[in-house]
């Protein structure tokens, strides 16, 4: 199966926050940060949809 491309649209302030987070050693780069966010958020919220999606 092929990958699906999602084109995030981010402004300079949002990118700055990402870059400062990366500078703390949280992830290697912007793409790695998004992947980390997706994994951690999905793990933390996988039951939310069944509970009505309030989050």
């Amino acid at each position, binding site marked *: 199966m092929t*990958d*699906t491309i999602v084109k995030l649209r981010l402004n300079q302030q949002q990118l700055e926050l*990402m870059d400062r987070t990366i500078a703390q050693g949280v992830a290697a780069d912007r793409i790695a940060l*998004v992947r980390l966010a*997706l*994994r*951690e958020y*999905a793990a933390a919220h996988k039951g939310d*949809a069944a509970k009505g*999606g309030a989050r």
Partner: protein
Amino acid sequence: MTSRQVISEFVMEPGTGKAIELLKGQILRIEQVEGGQCADFNCFNLHDYKEFMHCGRTRTVHGFHPTTGTFMWSAPPRERAMLYILEDTVGRNDVLFPRCSAYVYEAAYGFAVHTNCHDIQAEAQREYGLTPDDVHDSFNLFMCTGVDEDGHAFMTRQTTRKGDYVDLLALMDVLAVPNVCGADVMKTSNFALKPLKLTVFAATDADLASVPRTPTLASQRTPKDFKNPAIKSDRPLRRDPAYKPEFPNTPIVVTELPIALTPEELAMFKAVKRTDIYGDDDAAALRDLLFSWWEERFLQAHAGAPSIESK
């Protein structure tokens, strides 16, 4: 200093208020004389009245009922802790309701004249040259309030007793202006107006040591940082023909960041993405996920409120 020294005492009679110069390191005690009385409260930087207490900022940091261990903050762009609630024997204060006003009593009750917190505040502040327009949103001590299911603020009776008090420690030199709330036809003060006692103490070393440190940040700006530091001295508003907008961080520029999601990642994304808000706009849903994750992992304060822990 190991024991508090009384600097002054004053009793506010019903229908009145009192402006008090409260210097840094002094405590203002607002105390029930009979019980059951709401106090409205304003506070200004004694050396620059344009810095004043901001209920909006205070309630985002501390909630609707600030009590012992919380601060009263000044409005943006100053955003400094002006006062610290050192002690509160009741624990039910309010930053939801505005001050009552003459309009309320005329419109709802038909009074041509009635004691009201706005006019009482204005009269007390007049001693220091302030005008009725300078009265700001009120911190309401001993006022028992909440929010009902349809989103309206409500007030109910209070259970304070004689001797109950709130101690406010000044973290800067301020003009503190409490008043006896003028509402005797509402539940605010249990349908009667009663006096309140004011005592100013010098804080002890233990009092001062109990105050948590708050941040000192570049964003806490003062007139020396303003593009226009002059206080406007007349009433009409006129356009400045030399004005050139200098909004920070503009223009806002959007950049695309392509993310290649593996089938496994796509499945994770589909399981949690907010289609109820973003429909089939996966880019917006993934951006939401990214910053929602960031808030959950890194934000120390409630969303929209500043962190007040000093690093």
